[in-house]
């Protein structure tokens, strides 16, 4: 038994001993390796220490040399110069392009502009009555004129992009959202060309292509709202522009956009349709043939907008900018579906700025835009269904149908071309840093159309009706608006404006509006 144990142990021992020898060698090897590593590290560290000591010596020598110069209050700027490649201080937050989304290097700037108004008016029809603009104050009390988000940045080396999305609350308290703009633009096309594509504000005159927050008044000029629409002329499309090689600034641009939709007022705008779902009373653009809903079938179903702008410095302190714009496209009137609208515009901007301006003040700006619209009104028979306008068979012409009291029948309107024109002129005086006094004069009118001379009534469905009279969307009106704006900084403003409105047949109205605005985050520099 003992022998067996001994044998077992011996055998085990003989098997263990070689293993122990192996381990010893292993340990020796490890020790050797560690020693080598240690020595290597030590060598490296010694080298590093030597290098640093040398560097320190050099720096100290330099400093000693500089200390001999009497001027030093800090190390020489050369020594401070950061290498160009490091760029700006990494991670520094910037109020001007503050919110960077995405990895460093690929980013977009995000900004938010909130514009509100409060006020009173003697008008009973503020929304679409005295105030024609889609973002104008629209009721007594408070109005959300818009809270607009702006996203902008470089897409890649070839394009930059921009989007403006507006959130707002209408006079009825309903929230809504609008895509004001959303486009990409080329960065460096050859031949001085630039292409912008997407949802774009038409490059027509001055006010139309600016966002409301950069306007100098609480509301849209009448001529813009009447001819280019409450929300301005904007639609999906493309704009090609070219900078001419002249000694002064000359830019030629050409826009092609869809001509349908509510942001193409005066063209194939939605609303005011007749016979469709959106039936509304209104003259004269209410005669809307279903064929006008055809979308884009032909090349000339598109909206074309050329513009020429030129600018030169009159003196060192005075700049003049002149522009000529036009917009051509089909409109939605009549039954034929081949009627067109032409809008022509001319604009002038003159600015004087003190050669010793403090924060951009003082300055004086005079800006004027005039527009002429020729609108082909298509022939339209209000007895669309051939039942004498009595669709419900009660013996009376149905409510809302236009009736010629001369015949007692639904009106048959001949085709004609209507001419409207108008202008605004505004003068701004920035008299002290942050303070601007302004006054604007608005005037719009239209030549009396044949349809306005007919004895027309809008049927009430019971044999009578209200006289249609002069078209309120084309009748003469004018407005004078003095205002005072205080900009505590470039990022906030308070504006008080008085409007004296005079509308033909409707009389005069007085309104007073207080506008307040904030800008959060990125805020792109304003163009001239």
């Amino acid at each position, binding site marked *: 038994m003992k022998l067996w144990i001994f044998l077992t142990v011996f055998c085990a021992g003989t098997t263990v001993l070689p293993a122990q020898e192996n381990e010893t060698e292993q340990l020796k090897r490890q020790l050797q390796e560690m020693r080598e590593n240690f020595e290597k590290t030590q060598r490296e560290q010694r080298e590093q220490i030597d290098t640093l000591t040398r560097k320190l010596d050099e720096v100290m020598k330099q400093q000693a040399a500089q200390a001999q110069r009497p001027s030093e209050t800090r190390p020489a700027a050369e020594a401070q110069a950061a290498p160009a490649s490091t760029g700006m201080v990494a991670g520094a937050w910037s*109020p001007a392009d503050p919110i960077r989304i995405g990895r460093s290097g690929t980013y977009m700037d995000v900004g938010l502009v909130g514009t509100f108004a409060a006020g009173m008016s003697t008008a009973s029809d503020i929304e679409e009555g005295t105030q024609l603009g889609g973002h104008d104050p629209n009721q007594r009390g408070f109005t959300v004129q818009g809270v607009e988000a702006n996203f902008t940045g470089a897409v890649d080396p070839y394009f930059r992009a921009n989007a403006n999305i507006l959130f707002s609350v209408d006079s009825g308290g309903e929230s809504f959202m609008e895509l004001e703009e959303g486009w990409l633009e080329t960065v460096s096309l050859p031949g001085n060309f630039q292409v912008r594509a997407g949802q774009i504000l038409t490059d027509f005159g001055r006010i139309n292509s600016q966002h409301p927050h950069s306007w100098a008044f609480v509301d849209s000029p009448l001529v813009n709202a009447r001819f280019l629409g409450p929300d301005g002329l904007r639609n999906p499309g493309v704009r090609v522009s070219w900078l001419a090689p002249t000694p002064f600034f000359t830019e030629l641009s050409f826009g092609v956009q869809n001509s349908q939709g509510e942001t193409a007022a005066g063209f194939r705008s939605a609303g005011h349709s007749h016979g469709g779902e959106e039936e509304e009373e209104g003259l004269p653009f209410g005669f809307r043939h279903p064929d006008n809903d055809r979308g884009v079938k032909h090349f000339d179903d598109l909206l074309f907008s050329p513009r020429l702008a030129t600018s030169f410095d009159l003196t060192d302190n005075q700049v003049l900018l002149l522009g000529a714009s036009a917009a051509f496209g089909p409109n939605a009137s009549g039954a034929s579906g081949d009627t067109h609208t032409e809008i022509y515009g001319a604009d002038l901007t003159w600015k004087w700025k003190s050669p010793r301006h*403090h924060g951009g003040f003082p300055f004086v700006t005079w800006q004027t835009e005039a527009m002429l619209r020729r609108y082909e009104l298509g022939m339209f028979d209000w007895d669309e269904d051939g039942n004498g306008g009595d669709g419900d068979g009660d013996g009376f012409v149905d409510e809302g149908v236009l009736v010629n009291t001369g015949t007692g029948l639904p009106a048959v309107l001949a085709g004609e071309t209507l001419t409207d024109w108008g202008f605004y002129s505004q003068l701004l005086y920035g008299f002290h840093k942050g303070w601007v006094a302004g006054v604007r004069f608005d005037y719009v009118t239209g030549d009396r159309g044949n349809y306005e001379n007919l004895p027309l009534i809008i049927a009430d469905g019971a044999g009578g009706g209200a006289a249609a009279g002069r078209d309120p969307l084309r009748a003469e009106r004018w407005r004078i608006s003095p205002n005072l704006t205080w900009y505590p900084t470039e990022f906030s403003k308070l504006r008080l404006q008085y409007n004296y409105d005079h509308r033909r047949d409707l009389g005069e109205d007085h309104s007073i509006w207080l506008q307040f605005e904030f800008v959060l985050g990125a805020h792109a*520099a304003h163009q001239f």
Partner: protein
Amino acid sequence: MKRTLLALLLSVLLPAAVSAKLNVVATIPDFGSIAEEVGGEQVKVTALCRGTEDPHFVDARPTFIRVLNQADVLIESGAELEIGWLPPLVNAARNRRIIADAPGHVVLARSVRLLEVPAGPVDRSMGDVHPAGNPHFWLDPLNGKIIARELAAAFSRVDPPNAAVYQANLEKFNERIDKKLADWTKFLEPYRGTKVVTYHKSFEYFADRFGLVISGQVEPKPGIEPSPSYIAALIPRLKSEGVKLVIIEPFRSQKTPDYVAKAIGAKLLVLPEAVGGHDQAKNYFSLFDYDIAQIAAALKEAR
């Protein structure tokens, strides 16, 4: 008629083609002045901002678009000095030679060690604080040398055949600065440590270089107008500190600074912060000549 048109077209197109000079556009006239020194006969320099103007609030004139359209080199300060007006001009200029990161686009703030880089988070409640640091760096002649070095490098990148000329001009400029700096420093040496007040933080680099101590600003925060209560609180503090000078740029309203100066028994001094800010400040060197002579004269009087 055809011939007239052709002549007109040629007269418009040819100058750009024939001129062999490098077309250099600088935002601030000081960069323009240094560009002229470094570029010499090889460059044609245009400055967008004038020396009398507030460089933060230059108008984005459409004519500048055409100027930038023809530029071979664009020199800007960066650090958001020109952010309120330059970006849309560059976007509209359709010039690939000067777009971001093009060889001809020089952003000087990237090469200069800026003062007053905010240590903590910045927001707009602090006024117009530049997150990258104070951009008025050209008022230190040693930063002028860095500017010159960057310009020589940019001109050489864009116009390699003349690189040696730019290098020689750079060396000449540096020598001149070194010599002038010694004179300027000597001239202001007696006034080292003098306490001054400025309107905006425009003279930090200047004061730092020449040993003036800036005790505060007339504006409570960058770009924010002072209120009467702020001024009322500022006056006793400046008085107790013994401030000798109130320095403002030519474009500031003198009313409030003058009131402060009188109240604390100091002298109001209108100093150009840029070339062209005064008739005698014709170039980068005469700007310092003028400013330093003005300060020395004012302080001599105050003693």
